[in-house]
């Protein structure tokens, strides 16, 4: 059977617009699914406040785009909390790459995501989500602040806008293709 799934991860810090981006390009309203975690899978130093709570539910938003009659692209938003790393592993498994959303008012919240994909050699693009249309920094300033590798594409987007989100996806797929080993 030749039904193919292509996966893209939409990551970034808390409240950077991940769910909004998934929703703006998905052909279905974003769906939410849950994963149940026990304490063992939650970062040890992050259990403060959940003492006595032995399991936690983490919600994942995702959407889909039918590409052809046998190829479907799935977009998965990472959970807002960085500590659920094992979910990230699950989402990143086999993914073409990631769009890391960045909010210039809180650049730091996207560091863990950038670091995650960089370390694993997973292609990603950084997309600055222009909340309220403001643009406080130049591309150079943002690159420097995020310590972005020069060949990681940096783009501006409005996660609410379908064509803007679509452009970010296209940029990611191009970037992922450019990194494929040359083959026949």
């Amino acid at each position, binding site marked *: *059977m*030749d*039904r*193919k*799934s*292509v*996966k893209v991860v939409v990551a970034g810090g808390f409240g950077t617009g991940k769910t909004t981006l998934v929703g703006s*390009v998905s052909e279905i309203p974003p*769906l*939410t*699914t*849950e*994963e*149940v*975690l*026990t304490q*063992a*899978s939650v970062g040890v130093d992050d259990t403060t406040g959940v003492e006595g*709570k*032995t*399991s936690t*539910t983490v919600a*994942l938003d*995702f959407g*889909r*785009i039918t*590409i*052809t009659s046998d*190829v*479907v*692209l*799935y977009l*998965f938003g990472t959970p807002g909390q960085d500590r659920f790393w*094992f979910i990230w*592993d*699950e*989402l990143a*498994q*086999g*993914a*073409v790459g990631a769009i890391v959303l960045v909010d210039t008012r809180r650049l730091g919240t996207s560091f863990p995501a950038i670091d995650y994909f960089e370390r694993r050699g*997973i292609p990603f693009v950084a997309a600055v989500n222009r909340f309220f249309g403001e643009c406080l920094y130049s591309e150079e300033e943002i690159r420097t602040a995020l310590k972005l590798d020069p060949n990681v594409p940096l783009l501006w987007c409005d996660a609410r806008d379908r064509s803007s989100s*679509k452009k970010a*996806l*296209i940029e990611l*797929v*191009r970037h*992922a*293709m450019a990194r*494929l080993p040359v*083959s026949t």
Partner: protein
Amino acid sequence: MTYDIWDGDDDGEAGRLVPLYILVNGRTTPRNTNLDLATQVIALPADTSRLEQEYREIMNRCSGWISIAEIGAYLHRPLTITKVMVDVLLEQGFLGIGAPAQRKIADRRLLETVLAGLERL
């Protein structure tokens, strides 16, 4: 990926997990490690009348190709459980499986198809 999904004494969501957990015979990870959330499955012609209700609900969702993540979302079942149950149905020949999302085998042609598809949107 080995972790316990059920710890027995939480309320709410986890409480609802108990019967599902028993349904999968305590299995917490799928045998087929290639199964990922985006993997799509489809119902094969088979007699599902002897399947347990929870499995039949999955089969009913699979009359067309559908991903494991979608099944979990529509049936409000945690992903790990959904994955294991889908795996059981695959093993028993009730479901057919598509190619999993795999970066390593993702050939240039597939990405070209995706790119063309996105540009048409």
